[in-house]
């Protein structure tokens, strides 16, 4: 065989695996998709039904009475926690990137950037460990009461603030995980901005900060958008850290920012190994449907990000 053909086959394992995974998810969850219908994403009830009663037939399938699968609370939990993570991470990321690129002198910049990037390598479960051991007691006993007291007039921030397990904690931990990505990418982009632009601004009398804020940053806007979308994709799929700090809400939407939530990824982890208790098999397949929904959202977000970033790369070249 020609080398090229042989290499093409070896290289083909990668695309084959992703196609296999998506095809498998779609086909394995098909009975659940048919059974659950559109209510899957609009209903708030995830119930395996009464496992200790006699199975009944509904929708042509044998299920346990009361079995309903709806994941609205998971979708809301995932989106809200990611939103909070972005609200915290984007400003911090921009600030860090700007400071690193402009205010930190040469050699020091290398070391500090290096340290910031190291944070990106820390495994998710270690973030969860820190969140569980440190953040939850701190937030539950000191910060949440302070917030609830200071922000009593803002609807979403009112008490009750229960414990440290919840939406805000999950959002904070997630933001910590995505800030290095935003900061590093943005810093590279800022450093890559041509000096000419900065010099022109300085010649016109701009202060250093004004140069950065009004000239350089707008120039890297596309990169910022791209990396924000990329960070969103990362936060959507985060599993272990969220599992350990989010409080695992079931079948209700968070009434305020301190309330426990559940995300799709964390839900799959916590429910999968006991899903086989359901003799009808629908619980496992509904989890496949959750995985499919999560994958579709994640892939869409990720592709959008790469599209935006790809355009900036070609525009620059």
């Amino acid at each position: 065989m020609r080398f090229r053909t042989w290499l093409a086959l070896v290289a083909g394992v990668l695309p084959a695996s992703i196609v296999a995974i998506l095809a498998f998810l779609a086909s394995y969850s098909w009975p659940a998709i048919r059974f659950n219908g559109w209510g899957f994403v609009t209903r708030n009830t995830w119930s395996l039904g009464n496992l200790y009663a006699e199975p009944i037939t509904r929708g042509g399938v044998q299920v346990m009475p009361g079995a309903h699968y709806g994941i609205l609370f998971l979708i809301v939990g995932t989106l809200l926690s990611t939103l909070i993570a972005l609200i915290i991470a984007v400003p911090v990321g921009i600030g860090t990137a700007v400071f690193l690129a402009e205010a930190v002198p040469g050699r020091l910049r290398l070391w500090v950037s290096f340290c910031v990037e190291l944070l990106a390598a820390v495994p998710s479960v270690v973030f969860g460990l820190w969140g569980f051991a440190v953040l939850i007691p701190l937030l539950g006993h000191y910060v949440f009461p302070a917030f609830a007291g200071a922000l009593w007039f803002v609807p979403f921030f009112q008490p009750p603030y229960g414990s440290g397990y919840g939406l805000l904690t999950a959002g904070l931990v997630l933001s910590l995980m995505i800030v290095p990505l935003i900061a590093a990418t943005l810093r590279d982009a800022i450093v890559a901005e041509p000096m000419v632009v900065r010099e022109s601004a300085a010649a016109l009398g701009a202060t250093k900060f004004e140069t950065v804020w009004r000239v350089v940053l707008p120039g890297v806007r596309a990169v910022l958008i791209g990396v924000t979308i990329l960070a969103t994709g990362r936060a959507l799929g985060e599993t272990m850290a969220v599992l350990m700090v989010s409080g695992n809400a079931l079948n209700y939407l968070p009434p305020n920012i301190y309330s426990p939530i559940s995300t799709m990824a964390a839900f799959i982890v916590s429910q999968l190994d006991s899903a086989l208790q359901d003799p009808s098999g629908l619980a496992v397949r509904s989890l496949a449907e959750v995985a499919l929904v999560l994958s579709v959202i994640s892939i869409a977000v990720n592709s959008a990000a790469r599209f935006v970033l790809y355009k900036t790369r070609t525009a620059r070249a």
Partner: protein
Amino acid sequence: MQRVVAARDPSTIGGSGWNPARLARLRRRRARGIIGWGLCGLALGLLSVAMLWILLLVFWRGITALRPEIFTHVTQGTGGGLLNAIEGTLLIGVGSMLLAIPLGVGAGLYIALFSYTWWAKTIRFLSDVLVGVPSIVLGYFGYITMVELAGWGFSLAAAAITIGILCLPYICRSTELALLQVPNALKEAAYALGAGDGRVAFQIALPAALPGVLTGILLAFAISIGETAPLIYTAGWSDYLWTGKFTHAPLGYLTYAIWAFINEPFASANALAYAAAFLVTFMVLLISIAARTAMSRR
């Protein structure tokens, strides 16, 4: 053409000079600048504080929990050591790399050498799609197909394949990027001297791109060590060393110890969790540092 916002003061049109209004405006702008830099510094400060806090927690509680027993004994319920977990983590890491390196480097080679073909474009597109898939989805896939349907049970095979698939796009991408740095002249010269595709790939292009490829492999290895969710459903957990079987034999791994034992109300279990966290974080940081110094040295 970008619109440069200049700090042009209309009062200077038709003449300049340091009138008091202009001075006041300048002072305001400078003040805003100081506040701005302050906020940016604050951002970096917050990030640094959080980062140091995490690393200090892990290293402080981890080091105090390290005893020789961790490295010599296997886990016994909620106590004992972590030898089985360390061995399992390394086995899964090496196993997944043995699968992902040839396939990933091959894919990267193909994309870089034959980037004009539709196949290369498809591979690149699908590689990006694979990066977007959350790791738990891969774990679900591995669990249903390999552990349940194929009947392998919790096993090294299922774990290595799942993590291997996870790492494929990273190795592919870094190989491609490294190969793109190799000057075309080098490859053209080889072709001109009569080398075939295979020789150009393996004896000219790849060796020249080796530092970048190795960096990618090291970073993928770090990712494979730090994974938890897919392993919960493919490797299971075992309190003992590897039996040598690739199927029907669960494996221990460090990240499980972190997740499962931190919740236990027993001090011995919590100590194991912190020790495992320390070991994993230390290994991952070491590999990341090695990867980056390798990349910068070229």
